[in-house]
């Protein structure tokens, strides 16, 4: 399972999502979209919007931090 999170340094819900991953021992890759224009473009292309965080769990794209959605996506990714 691969988890990617697109963030900005000031975004609180990004921090909450990252804490959630850490607390659940889930590895993730983080992209700060204010530092990397290509990742910003990638994030917009994937999510068709420009709010952060965007989380990509094995291709399941979610905007914002919602523990229930993350849990579902992690479970279904783990079940594959």
């Amino acid at each position: 399972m691969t988890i990617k999170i697109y963030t900005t340094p000031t975004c609180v819900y990004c921090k909450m999502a990252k804490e959630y991953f850490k607390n659940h021992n889930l590895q993730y890759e983080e992209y700060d979209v204010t530092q990397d224009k290509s990742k910003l473009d990638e994030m917009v292309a994937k999510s068709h919007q420009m709010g952060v965080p965007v989380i990509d769990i094995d291709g399941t794209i979610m905007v914002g931090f919602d523990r229930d959605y993350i849990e579902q996506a992690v479970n279904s990714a783990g079940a594959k």
Partner: protein
Amino acid sequence: MYDLIIIGGGPGGVAAGVYADRKKLKTLLITDEFGGQSKVSDEVQNWIGVKSISGFDLSKALEEHLRAQKEIEISDNDLVSGIAKIDGGFEVSTQKGKKYQTKTVLIVSGSHHKKLGVTGEDKFNGRGVAYCSTCDAPLFGGKEVAVAGGGNSALEAVVDLLPYATKVYLLVRSDKLKGDPVTQDKIKNSGKAQIMFNSEVQEVSGDQFVSGVKYLDKASNSVKELPVGGVFVEVGSAPNSDFIKGMVDLNEYGYIVTDPKNQRTSTPGIWAAGDVTDLPFRQNNISAGDSVKALLDLYNYLNGR
């Protein structure tokens, strides 16, 4: 049956929880997250006892303080959807289908961002329309951006955008700014912001993303358009009181009417405090204080005093 259900996890809910534990009340606190609306603030400088703390750290400190109370049960990923009167108290139901019985209720559910209510706002939500400048300002680098509003949160949104946007238009509906003079000066001295009074947003336009905002210039009574890549909405707040409609008296804006002496609502057994009430000032410290006041009064009520 609980002695008390606290609805909300902001400073008010946590303050009540700490006091409820000291009074050994059988208590459940229901919230979807901790910290209240300050959570997204870069810096809070007026939480008494702490010179400066980020909104995120404040929310974590509040959560830790509550979790240190051994007697308090916490449901932290749910929201209350309704309250009904039952024999000897109330039944509180939640969005996830849970039902809890309690003798008393304290509502500290706070308030939320108001929307503009104009064409295009929902369509472009996240596609240029934004409600959290702290979160999203860095994504508007190199763009011209509009901010709608005239109070403190609108001024702070402009300040958040100044390092990134090439130009910020502040569209103010009335003929003056209501926010703090210190922040007003910061904006006026930036050279990048243009304050436009008597300007009422009417439509957010674009194709896939925002490319413009239409507004009524009330001075000339004509509709004009600005070519912007983003619209930040900061037009005040509205109470989170939908779930309590019909159970307690609300004022014309939906805020819960309370007795400022003890935070009682119109319904015996239900108290309310903080931003969801009809108080004139919306502050973390006031929410905490009013909530403690409510807790002490409801403790007396439970003890027949």
